[in-house]
């Protein structure tokens, strides 16, 4: 793909020695990188390495303190996103910036479009582009009714409508289901064939190997590597990122659980979704001490409701839950006090208070108890030292414990939640049940490894873990058994040691399955497995 580009033409976009400082951190330290026509460049780096900052500079959201930006070899100043769009640079933000109540066409006509009937004026172009790149976007649809993946495609269309040559995607796959990732990659391939350039950020090295042509690595704000993707492996990429070798083996030794007592048991759980439709239809669940049970499933099949019911955050219509044989109350506070830790799905809004400091966010759970409070009064010294200790053990990269948590990078916000929910495990007792929803969402490989280790250690100490994840590799690497949520029912569990990606994927899509995770009976299997053999135009074929 890069061969289409002649060596003499200047790069489409180039940064030269760009530095961006924030109070207490140098987010980008003399970063130089370039992007050629018709290539997909991966930006790799650990949490807080400065990836989002680099692309914010490219898109005019931040002004660099030092350094130069060049477009087609000419020095330019990108002062605002509007200017960036004029220069042909578009961004697909991690969290879509759309007006939920308006139609797709109205959203895309904003800031452009004709003076009268602006929505109608762009609808034709939208249809045309949507067709050309296989985006499947209906210009008349209300944005509020779109899935995260569809919203992302609307954002892609916004850039295409402006005729951008450079499209930047910040962790686009983190909000997508595996089959949606496949769709996104097809779109990216089409754009590349058209001679457009893409910047792709992801922590999933498999995705990077599959879709990108070249990799630029950032570490602590500096560029530490630049290599073609061809010939790289997960191991070499990981080593470039963290500076040491990382292993991707299944580390979990399935423990012998036959003698272990049942810790968490749920019988015939019934619950309604927030829209009032049945979300759980008679879910039965048993977790033994020391066991890690994975829950797979396409988003929206009841996983969120299951976890929220167990955490006491969602009303139960019927069924019983017991912890160590005792009925569990229905109050979220008593539930967590009896030893149920919860790592929620929406890390920013449910897991942290964005405007509060790192130290306060770390204490949200235990602030009212000694040692953080004495006689009803908060002990600010203890709060501070507790926070420092957590920041160290969980390697949270932050200018200080007093910094507002919203200023941290995405991965580091996730680490705050993990530290708070799992941090006390090393002490006395700790959590008995850990409900972990996408616990490594947005985490780099080093942090992912650490979370996996923390969860396995907790299980080793006798806790049981319910791990909900859309990342099948993660489920297969960590769980003792895997159950699948499908239309409000929990299928399985299947033995994780013998289950396969394809098998689980089929069950997720509604194919019937035998107990070992191998499907029998035909299901719409191509819907579910990202690396499925019957997926049309699959990117693997293009890379080979």
């Amino acid at each position, binding site marked *: 793909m890069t061969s289409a580009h002649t060596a003499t033409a200047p790069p489409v976009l180039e940064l030269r020695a760009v530095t961006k400082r924030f109070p207490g951190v140098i987010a980008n330290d003399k970063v130089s990188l370039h992007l050629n026509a018709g290539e997909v460049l991966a930006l790799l780096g650990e949490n807080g390495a400065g990836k989002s900052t680099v692309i914010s500079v490219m898109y005019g959201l931040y002004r660099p303190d030092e350094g130069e930006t060049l477009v087609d070899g000419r020095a330019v100043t990108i002062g605002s*996103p*509007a200017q960036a769009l004029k220069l042909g640079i578009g961004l697909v933000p991690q969290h879509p910036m759309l007006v939920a109540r*308006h139609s797709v066409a*109205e959203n895309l*006509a*904003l800031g452009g*479009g004709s*003076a009268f009937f602006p929505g109608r004026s762009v609808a034709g172009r939208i249809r045309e582009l949507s067709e050309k790149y296989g985006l499947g976007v209906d210009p008349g649809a209300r944005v509020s009714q779109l899935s995260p993946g569809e919203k992302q495609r609307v954002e892609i269309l916004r850039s295409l409508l402006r005729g951008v040559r450079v499209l930047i995607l910040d962790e686009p796959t983190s909000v997508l289901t595996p089959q949606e990732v496949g769709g996104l990659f097809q779109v990216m391939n089409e754009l590349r064939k058209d001679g457009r350039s893409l910047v792709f950020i992801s922590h999933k090295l498999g995705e990077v190997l599959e879709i990108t042509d070249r990799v630029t690595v950032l570490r602590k704000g500096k560029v530490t590597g630049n290599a073609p993707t061809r010939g790289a492996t997960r191991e070499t990429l990981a080593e470039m990122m963290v500076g040491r070798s990382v292993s991707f083996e299944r580390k979990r030794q399935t423990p012998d659980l036959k003698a272990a007592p049942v810790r968490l048991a749920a019988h015939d759980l019934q619950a309604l979704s927030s829209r009032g439709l049945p979300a759980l239809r008679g879910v039965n669940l048993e977790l033994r001490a020391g066991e890690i049970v994975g829950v797979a499933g396409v988003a929206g099949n009841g996983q969120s409701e299951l976890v929220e019911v167990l955490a006491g955050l969602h009303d139960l219509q019927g069924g019983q839950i017991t912890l160590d044989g005792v009925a569990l109350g229905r109050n979220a506070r008593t539930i967590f006090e009896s030893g149920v830790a919860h790592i929620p799905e929406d890390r920013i809004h449910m897991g942290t208070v964005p405007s509060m400091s790192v130290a306060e966010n770390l204490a949200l759970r235990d602030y009212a108890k000694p040692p953080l409070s004495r006689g009803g009064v908060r002990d600010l010294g203890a709060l501070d030292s507790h926070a420092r200790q957590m920041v160290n053990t969980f390697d949270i990269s932050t200018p200080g414990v007093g910094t507002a948590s919203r200023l941290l990078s995405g991965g580091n916000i996730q680490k705050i939640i993990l530290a708070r929910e799992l941090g006390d495990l090393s002490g006395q007792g700790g959590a008995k049940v850990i409900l972990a929803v996408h616990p490594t969402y947005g985490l780099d490989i080093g942090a992912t490894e650490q979370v996996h280790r923390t969860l396995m250690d907790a299980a080793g100490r006798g806790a049981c873990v319910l791990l909900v994840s859309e990342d099948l590799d993660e489920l297969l690497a960590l769980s003792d058994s895997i159950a699948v949520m499908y239309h409000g029912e929990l299928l399985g569990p299947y033995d994780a040691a013998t289950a396969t990606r394809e098998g689980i994927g089929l069950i997720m899509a509604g194919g019937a399955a035998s107990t070992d995770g191998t499907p029998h009976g035909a299901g719409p299997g191509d819907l579910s497995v990202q690396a499925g053999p019957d997926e049309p135009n699959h990117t693997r074929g293009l890379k080979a």
Partner: protein
Amino acid sequence: MDELLNALLRALAFGTPLLLASLGAVINERAGVVNLGVEGMMALGALAGFAVAYGDGSPGSGSIALGIVAAMAAGGLAALLHAFITITLRANQFVSGLSLTLLGLGVAGLLGKKYEGFPLFGQPNQWPFTIGAIVLALLLAFWLTSTRAGLTLRSVGENPAAADVLGLNVNLIRYGAVAFGGALAGLAGAYLSLVYRPSWTDGMTAGLGWIAVALVIFVGWNPLRAIFGSVFFGLLYYLQFRLQGKTFIPTEFFAAMPYLLVIVVLAFAGLRGQQGAAPEALGRPYTRGER
């Protein structure tokens, strides 16, 4: 039959200032700014309009047309104060709006003392105002839904960050919308002091501004429905006057009617789930670059 026609005519007369003021409030609320100062801006508009139209009291010394312009300017300027406090200084919109109502009523009462009790000669005809208000409602409905400017305004009220990223000036658009809202509130005031009751009396707005604010919610931020909403309230006002003194119900009850109506109507709107139609960013100042 005559009775019915009469009721409708009176309802239109009562409803005109309600329609004007609520159309203004619809526009600033669709841009995301609540202005509870409508009552105060109306009072200022009523006084400014009367003062300029009255002149020194001799025929020909004042001008109705200039009075209307002055009323709109007075309302618009008062609204700009609200805009500065809430958009530039990012203060709470509800508190600022309430203060504006108190301020407007107070200032109008004070400055209006010398005009109290003098009648205005050359009272203009009501119909240009009433028909103008209805035409304006139709135009605004079209403008909001079908023009680029209307789309921009709505987007600013729904998701200002999305508009900002595209290079649209959120604060400028909000300033404009708030000023427009104030100018219409001022015009509604002028209608009261020039057309409806051609004179100036302290407290002549009599809670109409509050009704207009409530009406915005009642009609779900929709200019077309505002026409019917104002006629409906106009009808209620008419009934209130008709029944006054003719029943055993004390007059005080009728005096409190507008406020009771507001509560009833808001409860009604709440039951219908109308609240969900509110612009997403309504009442929230916009700060750029929050991560």
